């Protein structure tokens, strides 16, 4: 039975002046008990498709030139596109549930989770009395395996972890027993181990209830884990649609093929020159503790051990991947290596010279030997300065190049190395896309000719095809210039493609270090094993 049928859906959004077509002739069917995955890169229109179905697009700023959306469930048949608010209110929550991406902001912070679940019930099941509703709420929380549900009902959202909040969101979406669940990237903000649990839970609940599910994601690994049918979107169009095994194993459309080929674990790896013998960076027993102050006198009562006794070497011409889940201290470690955060104890030596206790003044000339590229393309470049100024200023400070003309020529040459057009020099950061900004941030890091570079999750905000380009660029730079690189990431595919050695971090400590191929093939530590098992992979389905 076809639960949701979308025919030739087109959605146009207004930016105040023009109408931009976000969804362009999408047709799809979801049957009861089926999981339909919409996959695509950012801006491909997959979220807008879901919002169009729910009628949640901003009022007066969208229109549908064509299309039909019909929901056909046990309660009858209803046409959703352009339906009145009263019809939609009856459908939303009651017949279609929705889960959003960001678990941190999807719950109201001033209401207890019990009240929020209760509100949905009160609206859609007016016949139930308070005791019956309380029972339903408790049952819903137990169903999503919130431990000790009866007492958790009175908790506020900030007391729950990200994974638990997403469980509460699922409970809220399912409490009125909808026939269709729309999930918009529900696991993207979560760690891999948590993601694996949530995916398992969603799959299980769906099968038990025979719901249809529209699941939006950008991750082919997740698709392989959860989907029955998959639709690939590009620029508002559904370019390929079919059973998951078919599409993933034998993609018909060229775009699908290029997307799958761009997955980092699928990228071809060239022969790599051997890494240098002499370590570039030596870290011994490094610790960074943040004091926890309490009480009237702000006394230090405890320390947060963000980094706790880490020892690590990086050789020239080598990429060391630092892997771990959020909050494990990997970013703090990266910043401490560059002395952006003061280490509490331990020793950092760059090219044999101890830099742990150097004064800011003595450190300044050494700054050009080690550089950093950050995660967020939105804030990695100064929005008020043209690219030329951003690149030239550090050269001027460190006396690289004789005059500004020479420095400008060097900057232009560097832009060519990171595969950016030379006229980028006179543009401002907001004119570039995320991937281009990360290339410019790499150029800014390389402008001082460093020996050691820290890359902190620099591709995690980017689409796979863009990520593939950046990863290839990084590997080429490391191989050709003999840089040492510490690459911080949580993406195992990236680790597999890029790194020579890897270190797994957990709660401020390195639990396992070794050559990448060996660790991935034969993990010794339990945590590494759990981490690797949780990673959604395309091969899991294909096998």
């Amino acid at each position, binding site marked *: 039975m076809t639960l949701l049928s979308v025919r030739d859906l087109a959605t146009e959004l207004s930016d105040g002046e023009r109408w931009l077509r976000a969804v362009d002739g999408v047709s799809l069917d979801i049957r009861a008990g089926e999981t339909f995955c919409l996959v695509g*890169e950012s801006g491909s229109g997959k979220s*807008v498709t879901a919002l169009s179905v729910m009628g949640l697009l901003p009022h007066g700023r969208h229109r549908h030139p064509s299309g039909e959306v019909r929901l056909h469930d046990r309660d009858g048949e209803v046409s959703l596109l352009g339906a009145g608010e009263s019809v939609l209110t009856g459908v939303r929550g009651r017949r279609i549930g929705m889960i959003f991406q960001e678990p941190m902001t999807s719950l109201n912070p001033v209401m207890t989770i019990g009240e929020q679940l209760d509100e949905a019930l009160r609206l859609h099941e007016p016949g139930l009395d308070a005791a019956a509703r309380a029972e339903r709420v408790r049952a819903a929380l137990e169903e999503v395996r919130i431990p000790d549900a009866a007492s958790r009902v009175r908790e506020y959202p900030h007391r729950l972890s990200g994974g638990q909040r997403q469980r509460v969101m699922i409970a809220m979406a399912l409490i009125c027993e909808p026939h269709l669940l729309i999930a918009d990237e529900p696991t993207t903000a979560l760690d891999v181990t948590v993601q694996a649990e949530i995916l398992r839970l969603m799959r299980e609940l769906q099968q038990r209830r025979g719901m249809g599910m529209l699941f939006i994601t950008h991750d082919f690994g997740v698709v392989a884990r959860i989907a029955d049918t998959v639709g690939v979107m590009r620029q508002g169009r559904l370019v390929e649609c079919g059973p998951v095994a078919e599409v993933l194993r034998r993609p018909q459309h060229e775009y699908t093929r290029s997307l799958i080929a761009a997955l980092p674990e699928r990228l071809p790896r060239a022969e790599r020159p051997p890494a240098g013998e002499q370590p570039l960076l030596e870290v011994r027993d490094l610790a960074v503790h943040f004091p926890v102050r309490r009480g009237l006198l702000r006394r230090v009562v405890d320390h947060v051990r963000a980094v706790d006794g880490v020892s690590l070497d990086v050789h020239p011409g080598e990429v060391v991947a630092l892997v771990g889940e959020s909050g494990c201290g990997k970013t703090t470690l990266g910043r401490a290596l560059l002395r*952006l955060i003061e280490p509490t104890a331990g020793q950092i030596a760059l090219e044999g010279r101890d830099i742990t206790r150097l004064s800011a003044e003595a*450190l300044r000339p050494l*700054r050009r030997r080690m550089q*950093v590229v950050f995660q967020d393309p939105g804030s*990695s470049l100064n929005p*008020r300065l043209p690219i030329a100024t951003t690149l030239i200023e550090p050269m001027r400070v460190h006396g690289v190049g004789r005059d500004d003309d020479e420095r400008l020529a060097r900057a232009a040459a560097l832009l060519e190395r990171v595969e950016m057009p030379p006229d980028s020099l006179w543009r401002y950061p907001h004119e570039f*896309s995320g991937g281009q900004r990360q290339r410019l941030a790499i150029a800014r890091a390389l402008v001082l000719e460093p020996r050691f570079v820290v890359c902190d999750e620099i591709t995690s905000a980017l689409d796979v095809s863009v990520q593939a380009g950046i990863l290839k660029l990084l590997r080429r730079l490391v191989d050709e210039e003999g840089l040492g690189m510490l690459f911080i990431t949580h993406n195992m595919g990236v680790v597999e493609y890029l790194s020579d050695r890897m270190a797994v971090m957990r709660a401020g400590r390195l639990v396992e270090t070794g050559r990448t191929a060996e660790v991935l093939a034969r993990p010794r530590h339990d945590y590494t094993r759990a981490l690797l098992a949780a990673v959604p992979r395309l091969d899991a389905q294909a096998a």
Partner: protein
Amino acid sequence: MSERAAVPARPSRPWSAEVAGALLRRTSARLGLAWIGLLALVAAFAPFIANSHPLYMVLDGEARFPAFAHLDAADVSWLAGLVLAFVAWRSRGPAFLRFAGWFAATALVAVLAWATVSPPPLVIYEQYREWEAAGRAERVVRAPIPYSAKDYLRDHGDTGMEPPLAGRDGRTHWFGTEDNGADVASRMIHAARIALGIGFIATGIALVIGTIIGGLMGYFSGVVDMIGMRLVEIFEAIPTLFLLLTFVAFFGRSVYMMMVIIGITSWSGYARYVRAEFLRLREQDFVQAAVASGLPLTSILFRHMLPNGVAPLLVAASFGVASAILAETTLSFLGLGVVDDPSWGQLLNQAVQSSTFNWWLAVFPGGAIFLTVFAYNLVGEALRDAVDPHTQRAGRAG
């Protein structure tokens, strides 16, 4: 989407130009700026608009330019400031540099003018009218309003308050006369200088102090922040008006002292804004990257952080100018402002002082105060919208 497609064809514009463009698209901002611009013109050309000294006359067969001969240092500085502002507006280069250049050049001219320009110390306004009556002067070219701000018309016996256009002896007072017999229109025109000057200089002082202290608090946080915030709290606890009253009582009345006091008591708000912005910016990746590149502290603070945190400051400053003008008017209204020199608040005071209600002394200066404060608030409001990315690209979903 694809990485290559995003570079637009049009040339880049710096952020300041974007904001200026967005500001000028708003009618309210244009109206406000037009009124402020008009005030600035009137203030700079005041000696040529309202002056008892004729612009040109032939006395006993000898050509004279009394209005020019009586220009004092303040007149010269205002004129130079306006001309230099025009030059700065037409020249090329970063907005900040042009503004700094204008400021430095104007300050230099002002200092030079104070040292060199010396108008005749004795001013006799009546003599021109006497010469004319005696037939000694020919071809007299007068300013549109032929009365100086301090010309109390001593040569006429019947001086005192006079409603607009109640002309006696063939005199025309468009806005009437005040207590001492001086022309209200002339006094209002010359008072525009105090209104503009006090707003800009007091706010300028507050901005400089607030930015430096707030910036240091935000960047260093910790102990510096704690000391700075206590300082902010101390200054916020001082009521500006009472401090001004005390200083006026002790040191006499001076418009410059008023500017300084309004300035040094109103920086705390700006310091809070800058601190909050810097606390946010310090964690931004491009600031961390600047630190990691070993850039000097001054560059990090003023080149990488300040231009990114200046938006709320601009908005607050335009409202600050309005409140500084109001503070001066309040003092003058209370009779504690400048003596003898014209001020809108002082005229307003005279409206209620005598036993009759002199409407022309309430309506015209009151209207000028209202329009000026309103203009600054319009500009501030439009600036807030112009620098706010949410109102710029509202509702872009997807």
